[in-house]
């Protein structure tokens, strides 16, 4: 290339014009398309919250495109895929139990910040929770009195080469148990203190003390049983993430890697009494902390494929490995069953 300065500047000017025009055109196109999607989206059939919020219900994050995307919604447990009641509260992750609702929200700005709060049945804030990262998992105990949040904390990791999670357990309106990562960790009968440990995905038992969570260190994950009063966490079984206790407390469901590449999991359940593990009939990769529809069925969110990934559906599959998965709620994420 032996171009003159003038020629180079002309070419640069052309590049600038093309880049600017291309960007503006794309952004305008995106704007029009977005407006069209909102306009064309079949209006989400909705009902008044008052008709749903009294009885047994499923609370979730609505992901149907158009108005109401990202808002907390609910449908009756008896008719999960019927018209939803939309609230005006936007949450990335939501959980509900008794009359409390746990909402992990992202406030997008120059610097995106994250917040967690406990809301009462009228969606008024009961108490804000400490939070410092991207929403991952949210759980309440069945009576709604204990709250657990897992967030991804950027910049908190050793050498910035691995993730770090922060899992906080708080008594609603009371003291915080702090980061579960700081609990005494017992592995095969001895106290261990791995530096690279991470804890995520808490599920509560009914006794106001026991909980299960994932503990990871040294590249392995462990299903672990914890005690809030003793501030301990003991490993139970290898290769189990994001546990979820069945309503009767006998079975715990979780996702397993089984040597799959990072980011791919298979759902399984573990009978706590017999120690028997069962792989579920869902063969797609599931990245969610499952919820129990009843004592025999688990439900979980799955994104649609490709460009439709922003829309997720909630699926259901039998907890004993039988049958096949079926879609329970269209355009929903982060389901919580309130009985």
């Amino acid at each position, binding site marked *: *290339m032996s*171009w003159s300065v003038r020629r*180079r*500047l002309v*070419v*640069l000017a052309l*590049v*600038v014009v093309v*880049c*600017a025009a*291309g*960007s503006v055109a*794309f*952004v305008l196109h*995106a*704007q029009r398309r*977005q407006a069209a999607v909102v306009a064309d989206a079949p209006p989400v059939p909705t009902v008044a919250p008052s008709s749903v919020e009294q009885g047994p219900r499923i609370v979730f994050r609505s992901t149907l495109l158009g108005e109401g*995307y990202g808002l907390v919604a609910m449908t009756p447990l008896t008719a999960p895929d019927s018209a939803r009641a939309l609230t005006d509260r936007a949450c*990335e992750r939501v959980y509900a139990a008794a009359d409390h609702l746990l909402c992990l929200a*992202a406030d*997008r*700005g*120059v*610097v*995106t*910040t*994250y*917040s967690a709060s406990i809301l009462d049945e009228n969606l008024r804030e009961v108490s804000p929770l400490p939070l*410092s990262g*991207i*929403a*991952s998992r949210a759980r309440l105990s069945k009576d709604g009195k204990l709250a657990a949040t897992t*967030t*991804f904390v*950027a*910049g908190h*990791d*050793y*050498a*910035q*080469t*691995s*993730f770090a*999670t922060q899992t906080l357990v708080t008594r609603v309106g009371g003291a915080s148990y702090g980061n579960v990562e700081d609990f005494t960790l017992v592995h095969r009968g001895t106290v261990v203190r791995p*530096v*690279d440990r991470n804890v*995520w995905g808490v599920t509560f038992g009914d006794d106001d003390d026991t909980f299960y969570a994932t503990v990871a260190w040294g590249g392995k994950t462990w299903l672990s049983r914890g005690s809030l009063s003793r501030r301990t966490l003991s490993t139970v079984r290898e290769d189990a993430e994001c546990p979820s206790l069945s309503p009767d407390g006998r079975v715990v469901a979780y996702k397993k890697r089984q040597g799959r*590449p*990072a*980011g*791919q999991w298979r759902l399984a359940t573990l009978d706590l009494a017999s120690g028997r593990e069962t792989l579920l009939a869902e063969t797609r990769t599931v*990245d*969610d902390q499952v919820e129990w529809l009843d004592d025999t069925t688990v439900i979980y969110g*799955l*994104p649609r*494929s490709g*460009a439709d*990934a*922003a829309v*997720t559906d909630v699926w259901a599959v039998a907890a004993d490995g039988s049958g096949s998965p079926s879609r329970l709620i269209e355009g929903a994420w982060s389901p919580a069953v309130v009985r």
Partner: protein
Amino acid sequence: MYITLRDDATRGSRTGRTRVATTVLLLGVVSMLTDISSESVSAVLPLYITAVLGMSPLAYGFVDGIYNGASAVVRLLGGWLADRGDHPKWVAAAGYGLSALTRIALLPAHGFAAITAVVTVDRLGKGLRTAPRDALIAEASPPEALGRAFGVHRALDTFGALLGPLLAFVLLAALPGSYESVFVVSFAFAVLGVAVLVLLVPDLRPRRARARSSGATDGATGGATDGAGTGPPPRARVSVRLVADRRLGRLLVAAALLGVLTVGDGFLYLALQRRDDLATEFFPLLYVGTNVAYMALAIPLGRLSDRVGRGAVFLGGHLALLAAYLVAAGPGGSWVVVVCLLLLGTFYAATDGALAALSARLVPAAVRASGIATAQTVVAAARFVSSIGFGLLWVALGSGGALWVVAAGLAVVLVPAVLLVRPLDRVVA
């Protein structure tokens, strides 16, 4: 062959104050545009991956790890390629181009593997371009103003890093959820950066320039000429021995010692947050604060390094880091946060450019990119070791105790570091 932009020819011995070489300003603009591009994507990538693609933060963490880790090895390769081919510009252009392509590749990438691949390629591009670009800055600048040149470049670079997230925010505010728009606009900025580099930055050839101007010739013309096809092929060979110069060795040892005691700012922010119960929503703002200080101080400290020696400023920067540890570990109120960020910004402004300027002058021009790459890789590796060590200390002693220990260690290590680095200023000056 046309000589494109002549006035980077300040390498000759003009007296008085010279302007910053146009090549340096252009490279600064290239870095600024590229940082606007990359930081706008970095700012939204975590949310995009978790909220839109529906992957777990754990998956995001995996991606983030690659994001931060992958570039170290490629950096050495970039330096070596730049020296071997004697075309640092084209190695840098390959690196910038590679990263630019990843922006547009984000559009169809919806799965975990695809995103991981895209992010990895982006980091490889960053690793590839850094040392060749710094070698170009060194080649285009008179030795006596090298500190200022790096200061100007780093200030522009950091300015871009501050603008990027702002751009992403403005776009997402106007078009909620339209991450595609962010990727496309980011791609446009990256393309602009590559265009400025390819079209306007001269193809400086350090080795050929030395081969031609063995003293008498006008080095400037030699440096700025793209002499493809003419003149004798350059003789100098790139070898490990050329890089393993004893003077560079002194710098590497000192940088490694200091690097091992350089705690990542993430840890420091966390210590600040834990101690003062700093509202967690301010956490991301701490990075912004440090960058503002870095940007403001890069040029003044670069100028200072030209006067008092780059080694002196490099060491002084670590004194600022020591002070930051002490401030963060000691008692105090909210002013501590501001002072700590200011000190951290000072540390980066005093050390990043100075390290490149020092290493660029300590090795022969023929292996300059390799020399710079080696020094930067040593620092990166030492800081990696430091992070792991500090993590252990943190668990054992708590954040305050760990900071005291590291501060004491840094104070001790500064003594041999001064003995190692100070003589280099005399040699190079």
